[in-house]
């Protein structure tokens, strides 16, 4: 009994510092965001409670557009990350000479300071002299220079491509690990029975990778929804709002225009969506874990 009690005290003593840190830096600000969303907080010294005013103010046509844009932007980005990540993982799993080097070479976009990778994309998208525009003209796909970040539609896709580029390495390595954890016996048995490589891929790799793909898409969805650096550095939400996602919108309202109260209300809407994703994620992982046991 006394040993158990000592262990209990010890375990919680070990946890306390980390818990306190996260409470102060994450949990308290989260609650504070909710509180501020009902105030007119700004740079002024005094703040007053204003009820639902901020929420009534933000829900207009523009905000709905921003929400929809955030979802489509996130959707395309996650989809591309999953497709390219699966493609990369399957290829890097092939037993061909040089594969260790190839695996290593997928890492840089993930490991390099994000902002610096984004600067390089800034050059790639440069209209007059950048590589993509240059190649397009070179291959005769475009008559003149294309300034990707200057037009709404191309800026939207340009920011997605950069986001995908930064996300793919992690997804690939994760999927690679998932493929490697599939028992080799399965492949050998199928091979012995004369199954072709394609059949083995479709009947063994894909179904057994499915849990990893689902888990990763949820995690990626959450991370992508929060994406800030890429858009802020490349376009700051422009041109004329075509790359303004909810995070960018919140940032410019709160930090740019110093309207903290209104910004907090916009942040609360993001938090609601994130919590929904979070609940869905925990539900799904529990289901997957349960399914594996059965």
């Amino acid at each position: 009994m006394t040993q158990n009690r000592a262990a209990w005290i010890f375990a919680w003593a070990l946890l306390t510092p980390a818990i306190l840190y996260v409470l102060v830096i994450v949990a308290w600000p989260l609650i504070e965001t909710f509180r501020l969303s009902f105030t007119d907080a700004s740079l002024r010294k005094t703040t007053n409670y204003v009820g639902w005013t901020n929420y009534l103010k933000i829900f207009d046509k523009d905000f709905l557009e921003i929400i929809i844009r955030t979802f489509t932007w996130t959707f395309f980005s996650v989809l591309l990350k999953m497709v390219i990540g699966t493609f990369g993982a399957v290829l890097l799993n092939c037993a061909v000479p040089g594969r260790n080097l190839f695996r290593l070479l997928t890492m840089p976009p993930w490991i390099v300071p994000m902002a610096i990778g984004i600067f390089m994309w800034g050059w790639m998208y440069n209209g007059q002299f950048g590589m993509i525009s240059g190649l397009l003209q070179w291959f005769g796909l475009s008559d003149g220079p294309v300034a990707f970040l200057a037009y709404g539609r191309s800026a939207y896709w340009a920011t997605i491509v950069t986001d995908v580029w930064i996300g793919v390495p992690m997804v690939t390595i994760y999927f690679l690990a998932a493929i490697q954890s599939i028992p080799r016996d399965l492949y050998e048995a199928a091979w012995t029975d004369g199954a072709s490589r394609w059949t083995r891929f479709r009947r063994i790799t894909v179904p057994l990778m499915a849990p990893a793909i689902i888990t990763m898409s949820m995690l990626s969805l959450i991370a992508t929804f929060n994406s800030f650096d890429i858009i802020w550095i490349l376009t700051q939400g422009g041109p004329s709002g075509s790359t303004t996602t909810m995070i960018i919108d919140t940032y410019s309202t709160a930090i740019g225009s110093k309207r903290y109260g209104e910004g907090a209300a916009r942040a609360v809407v993001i938090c609601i969506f994130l919590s929904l994703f979070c609940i869905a994620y925990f539900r799904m992982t529990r289901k997957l874990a349960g399914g594996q046991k059965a």
Partner: protein
Amino acid sequence: MARKFLRSHETRAMIDRYSVVELIGIYLGIAAFLFFMLAPFVEGFLVSLKPLAQLFSTPYSFWPENGSFEAYRTMWVSVPRFGRYIFNSLFISVVSTIIVLLLVVPAAYAFARFKFKGMAMVLGGFLAVSMFSGAVLLIPLFRLMRTLGLLNTYYAMIVPGAAFLIPSAIWLLRTYMMRIPNELNEAAYMDGASQFYTFRRVILPIARPGIIVVAIMTFIGAYAQQFIFALTFNSKTEFMPLPVGLFAYFGKQEVIWNELMAASFVGIAPAMVIIFFLQRYLVGGLTAGAVKQ
């Protein structure tokens, strides 16, 4: 089929044998994949070698003519605080990593070894933290930093940044520590060792490789993700980490691209050196945390 009469090691060798067409397909696929991953680096590097006049000329030319490392010299003049930015970046990452380790090592051990009521919920809480980015919590954090008088100091970048590195570090180290056999704890208990003594003298030495992996991952995370807090909570040039320091330079009217790229490559160098020397740990560490069993 003849395949049925092979011995197992022969199966192992044969199953990985590709036809020429398959090999070509695989290499083409890998080439396309790596092209996407590496093109910005190759292009960025070539840009850093080109004289400005060639950069701003049409038609586009891929290869630098009269390329030189001139930009690597002139950027030190154009970005006078460049050395300071790199120092700041490293300093912020090192301190963040130390804070994270001090908090995470005990916590991960508690999660790995003890199962008391409420702990599963706390672990879930930590994981939920990683769902909220700093961007969402920026407003109260900004006000908190202002109240504490931490705006425009290193702390303003270190303290919030470290909090968001904690969840994945706990997860990774917990997975590692769960593999340490419980018999060690029992043996230590039999010998009359206290809980703390066991943790300090038995567990920590054994867990060292895992702690090193977590430290590396945390350092890389801290180095790679310095942007939003540094952009928002600090306006003093002398404290800026490299990404924000260069961003000011990037945002100018006339971007001197070859110098910006040269500066980026020098800034990347520390990360690249780390990848090169620690690649084994990196892949191992990533996969250990990723696939939980």
